[in-house]
């Protein structure tokens, strides 16, 4: 569905995206992870045709995306942006009127579920509520590709849980390709099926969450016992505590010898090990 070929985006001398080639071929919920400034928003804007690429190509369902031809199959709304200062109800109706395939019933259900005050004007909403309105505007569209940029920014824990449930409900009702970029890593891990990690404009990992469960793990034990095992393995980070060592691995599973234990690496720990740059070995 989405094909990025040697995609590049520069802002003057600064590189936003650096020759990215990536295929997101199937429906599913994709989690886009990256540090601040990694290029997540730039990537989403390029896919949606909100900005033009400096090089390479974006295709959605085979159609080349350029700003002059924003694909109608993609719906992307950036989080935390200015909206018309209308009541929540009017704003949702306005979104329904200017979008091509908007599910008003779903939007209405979400407004009730999140207890959004229908009559309250957008500027009078709390930060979390504004983000939710934007999330509804994005998710209620039945386009085959939905791009959500930080959809849970400013949500409290309950809202985040509700949002994840509704994301799954929406996906079950309309299976499609949903890309969610977020900083709340372990929360999205509950619903995402695929993972894309970008850093400094490059794709570091593109894998399924099941694949991650299998290939991302930690070897713990005495350093002398752990170090020999790392030969030939892709060790993405290590932590030392006295003579004990924990090595984070992104590679095939091995059967450790006695004295070395294997534990699951959480998505957050995996992400930090991969892009955090803290290697204490």
């Amino acid at each position, binding site marked *: 569905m989405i094909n990025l070929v040697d995609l590049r985006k520069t802002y003057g001398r600064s590189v936003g995206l650096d020759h990215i080639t990536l295929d997101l071929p199937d429906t599913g919920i994709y989690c886009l992870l990256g540090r601040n400034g990694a290029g997540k928003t730039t990537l989403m804007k390029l896919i949606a045709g909100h900005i033009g690429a400096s090089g390479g190509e974006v295709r959605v369902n085979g159609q080349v995306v350029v*700003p*002059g031809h924003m694909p109608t199959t993609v*719906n992307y*709304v950036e989080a935390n942006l*200015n*909206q*018309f200062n209308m009541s929540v109800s009017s704003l949702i109706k306005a979104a329904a*009127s*200017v979008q091509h395939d908007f599910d008003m019933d779903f939007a209405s259900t979400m407004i009730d579920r999140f207890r959004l005050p229908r009559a309250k004007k957008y500027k009078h909403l709390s930060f979390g509520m504004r983000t939710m309105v934007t999330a509804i*505007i994005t998710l209620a569209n039945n386009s085959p590709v939905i791009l959500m940029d930080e959809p849970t920014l400013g949500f409290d824990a309950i809202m985040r849980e509700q949002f994840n449930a509704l994301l799954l409900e929406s996906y079950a009702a309309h299976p499609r390709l949903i890309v969610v970029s977020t900083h709340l890593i372990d929360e999205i891990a509950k619903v995402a099926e695929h993972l894309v990690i970008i850093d400094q404009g490059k794709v570091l990992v593109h894998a399924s969450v099941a694949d991650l469960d299998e290939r991302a793990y930690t070897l713990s034990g005495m350093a002398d016992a752990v170090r020999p095992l790392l030969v030939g393995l892709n060790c993405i980070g290590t932590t030392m505590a006295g003579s004990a060592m924990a090595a984070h691995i992104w590679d095939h599973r091995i059967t450790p010898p006695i004295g070395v234990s294997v534990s699951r690496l959480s998505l957050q720990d995996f992400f930090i090990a991969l892009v955090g740059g803290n290697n204490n070995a």
Partner: protein
Amino acid sequence: MHNTIWAAARLNLKNLKLSYLVTGIVLACTLIQDVVLIILHQSTRMNSDQQSLGWGMYFYLLPLLAAVTVPLRNLRRMVNLGAKRSTVYWGGLVTYVIATAAASLLALISFYLYEPFVVRASGAVGRLSLIDTFGWASHGPITAFFQQFAFLLLLTVAIHTVVLMQDKWYGWVTDGVIVAIIAVFTPIAPLRGALVWFFSLIITSPSALQIGSCLVLTAVIYGLSRLVLDAKPM
């Protein structure tokens, strides 16, 4: 597609508060001034020697200010609602056509009904109106409406396009070129002649030619604004 364009136009028209407010305040102030002049004339029988701008001319502010508000404010908000660029583009044109038509109609009604009343009641020397100054009234009210509409629409889309490109280098170049044309062309007789020819074409030429040239230029300028819109990062 057509539904989304109409929806975008409706949304634009609903969100021109600044245009409505400024136009409304100016109209109200001018109306108050007229009332004062009428009261003074009725009580003192003194004629005003002032020649002021006709009340209806201030309706022009509505489309002209809309041409600033739409690209600066509404365009981005429309995209934030999930509208595509093509929807925003065509919706903008429909907005301008409606706003310009409304302003032209109200200015025309004011010219034929309100201004003569004010001149009689206030004893004013006269009231300036482009409908009269440009000779559009001499072709009858219907032709005058279309002449005024075509000219105002051209002015509106020109402002829209210039405002739209202000965040790009070519926007500043365009500003410079416009200023340079006025500054350089005016003092030099042959170039001034070209300016006079151009303004005669879009203002005072025979009605069909004037309307036609304004609409063609409108189409060309609004077509160019599509290129600017497509290149605009959102």
